[in-house]
C-alpha cells in the first residue's frame, strides 16, 4: 500500500496536467527505509513525448547525489499517460529498475490540461511483475 499526503498527490496531478499532452515525470523522495514519500521533485521529461518519458541523464545523476546526501531514496516514481489508462505499459515494466519504489501512474486522458476527472494508481514493479496496490491518502 502507498500511504501519501494529499498535497503530494495534488502536486503530481498538477504536473501531469501542466505537461499534457506530453508525459510528465518525477519522484517523491523520502528517508531511506521509511517508505514515506516527502520531498516532491518534478523532473523534466527529456523525451518531451506524449508516449515516452526519460529523466535527463545529468538531472538523474544530480537527483541521486542529492538523495544520497540527504539519506533519501525514491519512494515514489511517477509519470503520466496522456491518452491511455493509468496502467504500466510494456516499456514501463521493462525499464522499471527500482524494486523498492511505488510506481504511480496519472492518466490525464479524460481531463487533458484542464480540471476534470483524473486517474491516479500505484504499482510495484519487480522483475517484470506488476502488482497494483491501494493508495491511502492522508492529511
Amino acid at each position, binding site marked *: 500500500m502507498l500511504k501519501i499526503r494529499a498535497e503530494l498527490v495534488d502536486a503530481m496531478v498538477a504536473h501531469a496536467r501542466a505537461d499534457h499532452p506530453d508525459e510528465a*515525470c518525477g*519522484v517523491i523522495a523520502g528517508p531511506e527505509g521509511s517508505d514515506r514519500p516527502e520531498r516532491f521533485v518534478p*523532473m523534466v521529461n527529456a*523525451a518531451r513525448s506524449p*508516449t*515516452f*518519458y*526519460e*529523466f535527463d*541523464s*545529468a538531472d*538523474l*545523476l544530480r537527483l*541521486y547525489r542529492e538523495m544520497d546526501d540527504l539519506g533519501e*531514496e525514491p519512494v515514489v*516514481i511517477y*509519470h503520466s499517460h496522456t491518452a491511455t489508462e493509468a496502467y*504500466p*505499459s*510494456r*516499456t*514501463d515494466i521493462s*525499464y*522499471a*529498475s*527500482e*524494486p*523498492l519504489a511505488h510506481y504511480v501512474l496519472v492518466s490525464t486522458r479524460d481531463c487533458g490540461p484542464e480540471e476534470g476527472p483524473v486517474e491516479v494508481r500505484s504499482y510495484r514493479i519487480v522483475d517484470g511483475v506488476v502488482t497494483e496496490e491501494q493508495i491511502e491518502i492522508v492529511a
Partner: protein
Amino acid sequence: MSVEVRIPTILRSYTGGDKNVTGDGADLRALIVDLDARYPGIAERLVDEQGLRRFVNVYLNDEDVRFLGGLDTAVADGDSVTILPAVAGG
C-alpha cells in the same frame, strides 16, 4: 590503481548488497571485465553486443560516459564511476 564504483539498488544483488565497490582497469571496458570477475553476471546487465545498454547510465565522475568515449573512456586512479539505470518508460 583503484576506481570507486557506485552500484545502484537493482544491481546490489550481485555485490552482496554493497553500494560501493572498487575496481581496476585502464578504461571502462576493462573495469567492467574486472567487476564481472568478482561479481559474475554484472557485466551482462551493463553491456550488450552494441556496447553500453541503452537504459543504463554510467558516469565518470560527473560526466555521462556517452559524452566521453563510451566503453573506451579512460579511467584513472581515484576516479569515481556511478552506475544508474535510466528512469524511463512509455
